[in-house]
């Protein structure tokens, strides 16, 4: 489903010539929960931008559901993003002046989903992300950080994307709330969603079933293990 072949990404800015990704290849199957782990400057953010169709590689191919994303133009990438990808960011990136429900409906607006359908789909996504209905009409700056990230997860889910990309989703949360959010990802994975988690923390990466470790733009090693379980998961 995701096939990355010999991808390199080179940044050229004046005299600076920086190789962020150096000939990377891997595949991720549908329904996997993969963590991409590495220290800062390892190239994991660059890789996430490529996987998330925010950028294209300098060379190599990236096949997403059989489509070659690596040669697409800006507006084509936007279509891929709204149809295939759901993002969860470290800093949530919610529209603070809009309600919880409207934040979740936003991708549906760009996808051209009819108005009547949007609300029902947003409510379903919010419930799947573990949000309680009492908050739906709150403005998104009136809820807690953990709730904000659940709203962001619901927004990522609402378009039923092929992959959910989470970029340091627990970075702005305390460890307990972070554990809740990670448990939510595990639950979504069990329901069949493909999840890619980008992090620099080992204990966060261990929530995934497979870990790709990146250093200096190369895959250093790959681990497959039993995912870590939390008490938070057991209590949900």
């Amino acid at each position, binding site marked *: 489903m995701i096939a990355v072949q010999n991808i390199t990404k080179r940044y050229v800015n004046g005299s600076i010539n920086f190789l962020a990704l150096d000939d990377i290849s891997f595949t991720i199957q549908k329904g996997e929960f993969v963590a991409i782990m590495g220290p800062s400057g390892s190239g994991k953010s660059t890789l996430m*931008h490529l996987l*998330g169709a*925010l*950028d294209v590689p300098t060379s190599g191919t990236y096949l997403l559901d059989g489509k070659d994303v690596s040669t697409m133009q*800006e*507006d084509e990438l*936007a*279509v891929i*993003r*709204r*149809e295939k990808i759901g*993002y969860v*960011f470290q800093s949530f*990136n919610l*529209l603070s*002046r*809009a309600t919880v429900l*409207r934040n979740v409906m*936003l*991708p549906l*607006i*760009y*996808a*051209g989903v009819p*108005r009547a359908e949007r609300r029902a789909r947003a409510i379903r996504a919010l419930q799947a992300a573990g949000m309680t209905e009492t908050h739906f009409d709150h403005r998104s700056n009136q809820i807690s950080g953990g709730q904000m990230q659940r709203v962001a997860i619901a*927004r990522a889910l609402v*378009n039923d994307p092929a992959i959910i990309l989470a970029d340091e989703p627990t970075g702005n949360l305390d460890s307990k709330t972070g554990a809740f959010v990670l448990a939510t990802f595990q639950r979504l994975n069990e329901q069949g969603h493909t999840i890619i988690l980008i992090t620099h923390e080992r204990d966060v990466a261990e929530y995934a079933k497979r870990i790709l470790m990146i250093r200096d733009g190369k895959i250093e090693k790959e681990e497959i293990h039993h995912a870590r379980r939390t008490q938070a998961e057991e209590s949900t």
Partner: protein
Amino acid sequence: MSLLDFLEETYLALSSNKVRSALTMLGIVIGIASVIVMVAIGQGAQGSIQASIQSVGSNLVIVAPGMQRGFGAQVNAGRGSAQTLTQADADAIEKTITLAKAVAPELSRRYQITTKGKNTNTQVIGTTPTYPEVRKVEMDQGAFLSDQDLRVLARVAVLGPAVRDDLFGQDAAAVGQTIRINAIEFKIIGITRAKGGTGFSNADDAVYVPLPTAQRFLAGDMYVSMVSIEAVNQDAMSTVQQQITDLLLERHRLSNPQAADFNVLNQADIVATASSITSTFTALLASIAGISLIVGGIGIMNMMLTTVTERTREIGLRKAIGAQRGDITYQFLMEALALTCIGGSIGVLLGWIAAWAVTQFFGLTSVVSLSSVALAFGVSAAIGIVFGYYPAHRAARLNPIEALRYE
């Protein structure tokens, strides 16, 4: 994205920063309102000047004496001094110019007019019964001069209301009383209706007497000082003007039009001149107001640029969840358009009220025309697009990765 979605986004964006939106809009409101008021005042002035020219008479062609030339052309007197225009000229015009509806010759001079205990100095116009039709004079009391009065050299007079007020007191009954013009007694047979000043002469401050009477008893010669001709319609005016010129040149045995001892004036030319003055005036006012509109537009651009910078992360997010360049461009363009259109509407309303107030409290005529309202709307929409496009374009071109990282 549907139009409704864009409107909803626009509403959310503008209402989340009400004070700033309102202040930005104020620039457009003031700009549009001042354009509306200025154009209204300009057009009002144009209308009232035209009306006052038209009140002298419609489709009027006037023949006035030209320059007196001595034999040998050594000494030239001023224009209007020639005593070459006669009753016979007027009759000839009436007879041969078929496009002339009515012809009214007149001989006017100022005289001292006395009555019991009071006196005044005013214009005495010797004329014919066609005068009221040609010069749009209406009667308030009594009757105007009749053909019979002309035939018998009757010493009768019709007074303008101002003269009546001066001699007999405000609204006093004057018909039937007598006045003395140049020590000759005249009986008052009518009072004309007040017309107000016309800018060129005041028809209310005049005394009308039969033309032959004026020639015989007052002036002592047989010339006329002006012939007013009413053309059948506006299109015929220049033809009439040309025909009269040709006729009078022939009658006065002049071969060179440069040497004409008369001038033929066309009212349309006077209206056109006055119109060109007032349109210049209107354009001047409108362009001053237009400057404030441009300043308002720059205010919009400034706010939109600030907004784009402030919402960089939001733009990054929108792009990340699938917004295309066009979606972002339209969203910001709609915000600018909403500001200018709402501002424009308020401005039109405010301008309308201000124009009304100007008429009410300062007595200036003002006309808010539909075209100026339409223009104001068009201009505010255009300002929205012109000044909103650059910020919107900048927003749409943001790189989503950098935009998401923006602090």
